């Protein structure tokens, strides 16, 4: 596969490639304005036009460095960044609170982030709360009807991808030739921790996509809804998927979307076939005893 020009580190460029020309207004989402440039500099939030409609844009700025939290640089989502992104989602919900589900604005997450803030102060204060807060906000917006599309353009790693990506309705990724990476940690670290040599892991990852680090492997597990083959292809793909998501939600098919939808997709593409068997057995076994746990009348 001949490598193409990577989009890694180019979150801001990607915004301009995706939204309607010159329509991105950084720092405003509905009634909320983010006017302190020092606050969560790694998180880029704002409103843009997409196919003529307002959308919320959330991206990472890999060039930003957070002076207050030294481990937060190169696109890392630290505590401030996580809460700032969560606030952008809550502001989107508030702005469309009295609109019908069909008119609630879409959210587009542009994903190029190497991880959450791995520092001591983050553990003293609680990085887990910030990355969790952003996920709960996205899940709430998705369940309220906002279409959410994640567009992976570079690195989509571990806790940062879990908060900035994996709660979306649909996940798109530039294909492997752009060097996009979706995983928890590089095979080199995995081999050290689970004590398997790298050659074995690399050999295995060809046939067993469950831990290999590329978008095609993640897609083989039902984790990606579309692999986009060109940079120009990002914009039309996002517009198409937003329309698809709106149609599915209008038809009451939320279960085909979001994390549960990717579980179903994982079964369809034969990447995760144990999951549905476990779920079916648990349901059957609980149904057999449920009466015992209902209030005795």
């Amino acid at each position: 596969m001949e490598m193409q020009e990577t989009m890694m580190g180019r979150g801001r460029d990607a915004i301009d490639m995706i939204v309607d020309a010159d329509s991105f207004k950084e720092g405003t989402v509905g009634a909320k304005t983010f006017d302190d440039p020092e606050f969560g500099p790694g998180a880029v939030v704002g409103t843009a036009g997409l196919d003529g409609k307002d959308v919320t844009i959330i991206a990472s700025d890999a060039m930003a460095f957070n002076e207050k939290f030294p481990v937060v640089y190169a696109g890392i989502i630290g505590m401030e960044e996580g809460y700032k992104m969560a606030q952008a989602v809550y502001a989107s919900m508030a702005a469309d609170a009295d609109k019908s589900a069909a008119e609630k604005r879409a959210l587009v997450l542009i994903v190029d982030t190497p991880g959450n803030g791995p520092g001591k102060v983050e553990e003293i204060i609680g990085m887990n709360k910030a990355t969790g807060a952003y996920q709960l906000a996205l899940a709430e917006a998705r369940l309220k009807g906002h279409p959410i599309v994640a567009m992976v353009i570079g690195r989509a790693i571990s806790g940062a991808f879990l908060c900035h990506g994996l709660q979306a309705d649909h996940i798109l990724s530039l294909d492997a030739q752009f060097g996009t990476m979706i995983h928890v940690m590089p095979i080199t670290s995995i081999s050290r921790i689970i004590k398997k040599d790298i050659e074995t892991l690399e050999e295995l990852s060809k046939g067993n996509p469950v831990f290999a680090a590329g978008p095609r492997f993640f897609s083989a597990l039902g984790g990606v809804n579309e692999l986009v083959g060109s940079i120009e292809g990002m914009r039309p793909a996002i517009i198409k998927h937003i329309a698809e998501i709106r149609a599915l939600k209008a038809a009451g098919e939320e279960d085909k979307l979001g994390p549960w939808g990717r579980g179903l997709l994982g079964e369809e593409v034969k990447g995760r076939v144990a999951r549905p068997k476990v779920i079916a057995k648990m349901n059957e076994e609980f149904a057999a005893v449920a009466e015992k746990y209902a209030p005795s009348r």
Partner: protein
Amino acid sequence: MPKWNEIQEQSFLETSARDRALGMVDEGTFTELAGPFDRFASPHLDVLGDAICFDDGIVTGVGKIGKTPVFVISQEGRFIGGAVGEVHGAKMVNAVRLAIEFHDKLKAENPNISAEELPIVAFSLETGGVRLHESNAGLLAHAELMDQLQKARHKVPVIAVIGSKVGCFGGMGFVAAAMDAIVMSEFGRLGLTGPEVIEQEMGKDEFDSSDRSLVYRTTGGRHKYVMGDCNMLVGPKVSDFKEAIGKLAVLPIEDFESMRRIGSPELVEKQLKYVALAAEMHPADARDMWAKAGNEDVAEMTEKPLVKFLAETKRLEL
């Protein structure tokens, strides 16, 4: 298999996932779902030459505390560190989904059913997060669980129970933070990036993970209690945890909103005050936060007996 009342007296820290599951609910009420006899092992381990486990390192089922149906999830740290793979993940995700479904069914059958008779989830967390042997499946399972936790909001109280050896780290750290209430013992530990990973990525001067006291000061139950990151700090025995869960089991879902850390714009505002304080103080140690909360005897706070600690400690309210 120790009998139920023997389990009650055991240290929660040392007790197996299955005995914790049995011991967290009333005697004889626990029904295991997808237990070892169903032989749901991970399909991804033999290719790596690793041993499997017929419950994939997690016990799921349902029991009762008084009138309350309790959906129980209990992770086994001795199997690959309680880490989350495809099967392990499906069991915990579906246990929460079943609790929500049962809630809806009971409420439909009897709209004025009492809060006490509506189900809760009790989740005994012992995990390092994503199982690296099947990391992509583990990532997807974490996202499914967060989706279920949001679907449980305002319906089914989900209680994190943290007091086991491995602690609760990695992705499961934010899962715990997203739950309604968190019950810890002082031996429980909770965080996102484990101390070893911080040291590996940022070096020893950022975090010396061999310094046990530093590890406990940063991630342990006493620190989490001061920060409001755990709601109840309980004694070391299984019975101490069961008692705490029992107190929560009878509360209406509305009472849990005030116990939460995240999940609303107001809570984000509140958490940002702690972040701003950290940006201003640059704490080098958790003790700096204890002092900020108004505790004078910071050095004794880790050693003093639990009862004294609970009586005297000031928590950091912002």
